[in-house]
């Protein structure tokens, strides 16, 4: 009985509720509709139309026409999911079975785990809208996100075939190279904020204006204006590194289909392939969320009142809480659209160009940027 009373049931229940809400009601739908957006936007950019007529196939059951419940092919993600579930789960004979089965899981889990520390909203129902409000936030994100490479490397290695193997090798070298500039470009931001906790990062941006747009609090001091330069550099380096980290074009060398068939997931089919796919897009969402939290003020909307713990139980406060969550994911979707837009604009880098860019340019720029930031912080009050 003593032991039972010490268990924080409220905390566990609220954390589980927040996790379920975040993963099943927000992130996974966004993932599937990002895939849809990817196909539609790519089509529109290339003067095509993309999937625009998926309905429910009731003609299979004797009806005359399919039911067009969702307009414009919005049922496509549902059809994709059903297709992945119904396809044959084929494991080739020559693979290393244990790691072959482990790899898709390792691709998916880290991407979703990074979401745990992201403050995706203000107070709602008397709860802070973050699953784990830990004060090593950004370090946790970097640590977990870099585990994501193991899924790809294991997939490439256990497939026991040349193209996945090359894809796995490329993934590991690319991720290690860009992890450095990713971490270093976040340092100036953390120096300005002075805290690793992501909720505090947002609080700082509410008080002083978003880092990328320092005038959102209505004033622009000399210090903010000078810090704008390193923040801009850091934003560009961080975004480019995030492209490389999430294996997006122009850095999708691990699966470059012109050279490596499908890269690390060549031997995968059905739901195991779908897990890689989901993992990649979930990692994109996690990456864009970090960009939003660090540079674009998280869930904060200028000129909108901010909930306190007490006001979050009132009807107005609940509406405001949901509005803040919506604002956060609207920003994330904006960044995702930018990811897609870049993907269908730029051609893939050659591998030596990728390495050169990572080690000779981005790494140095990020390093020098830290000193610039330190100088400005020390000299300008």
């Amino acid at each position, binding site marked *: 009985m003593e032991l039972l009373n010490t268990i924080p049931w409220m905390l566990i229940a609220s954390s589980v509720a927040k996790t379920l809400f975040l993963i099943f009601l927000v992130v996974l739908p966004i993932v599937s509709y990002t895939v849809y957006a990817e196909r539609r*936007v790519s089509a*529109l*950019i*290339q*003067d*095509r*139309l993309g999937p625009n007529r998926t309905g429910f196939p009731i003609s299979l059951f004797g009806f005359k026409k399919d039911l067009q419940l969702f307009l414009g092919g919005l049922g496509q993600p549902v059809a994709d999911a059903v297709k992945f579930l119904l396809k044959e789960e084929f494991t080739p004979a020559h693979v290393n079975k244990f790691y072959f089965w482990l790899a898709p899981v390792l691709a998916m889990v880290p991407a979703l785990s990074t979401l745990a520390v992201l403050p995706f909203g203000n107070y709602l129902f008397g709860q802070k809208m973050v699953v784990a409000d830990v004060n090593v936030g950004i370090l946790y994100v970097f640590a977990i996100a870099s585990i994501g490479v193991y899924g790809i490397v294991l997939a490439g290695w256990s497939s026991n075939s040349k193209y996945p193997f090359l894809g796995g090798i490329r993934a590991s070298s690319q991720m290690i190279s860009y992890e450095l500039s990713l971490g270093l470009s976040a340092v100036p931001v953390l120096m300005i904020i002075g805290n690793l906790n992501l909720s505090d990062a947002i609080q700082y941006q509410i008080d002083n204006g978003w880092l990328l747009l320092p005038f959102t609090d209505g004033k622009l001091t000399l210090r903010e204006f000078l810090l704008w330069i390193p923040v801009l550099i850091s934003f*560009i380096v961080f975004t480019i590194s995030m492209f490389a980290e999430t294996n997006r074009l122009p850095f999708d060398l691990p699966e470059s289909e012109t050279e490596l068939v499908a890269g690390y997931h060549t031997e995968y089919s059905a739901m195991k392939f779908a897990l890689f796919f989901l993992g990649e897009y979930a990692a994109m969402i996690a990456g864009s969320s970090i960009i939003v939290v660090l540079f674009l003020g998280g869930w904060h909307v200028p000129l909108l009142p901010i909930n306190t713990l007490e006001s979050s139980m009132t009807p107005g406060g609940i509406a405001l809480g949901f509005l803040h969550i919506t604002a956060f994911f609207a920003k994330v979707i904006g960044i995702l659209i930018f990811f897609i*837009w*870049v993907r*269908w*604009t*730029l051609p893939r880098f050659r591998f030596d160009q990728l390495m050169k860019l990572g080690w000779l340019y981005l790494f140095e720029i990020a390093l020098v940027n830290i000193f610039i930031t330190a100088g400005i912080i020390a000299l300008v009050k």
Partner: protein
Amino acid sequence: MAYTVRRPNLTFWEKIYLPNIIAGLAITFKHLKKMLKGETHVVMQYPEEKWDAHLPEYYRGAPTLVKDEHGRERCVSCQLCEFICPPRAIKITPGSIPSESKFAKVEKFPEAFDIDMSRCIYCGLCEEVCPEQAIFLRKDYAVTGESRADMVHHKEKLYELGGTMPDLVHKWNPEK
């Protein structure tokens, strides 16, 4: 002798790459915007919109059998098309014209004429080889079926698709 590839001399702005990325993004955005405003019309929505009216005269669609202006079937069951067909899609069963007809003992006729459309490669050799101008490749291209048996075009179907084509061969007509 070694051949040195001349690399282009890039300016500073081209070397730092970012302005060109932004220019590229602008180009793709322009395409996106034009598509959203409906200014580009490249894609046809297939079953609703079709290009049929623009098919050229020489278009080779599904092979069909044709009748002449008197409604007589022109095929005399010589089986040249069956022999020349590269994928062996055509199968003809020859038969004799009944003795009460005035064409009896003059020519034969096909009792059965099957073209397996799952084999046909639309090469047009049957049309080219036919001495009676009885088989033509028409403009039907959407040949579908739910089984292999569905994909075989029998004689009735071939005549239905072919229709009549008058004034090609006059051997059946009474002499003037």
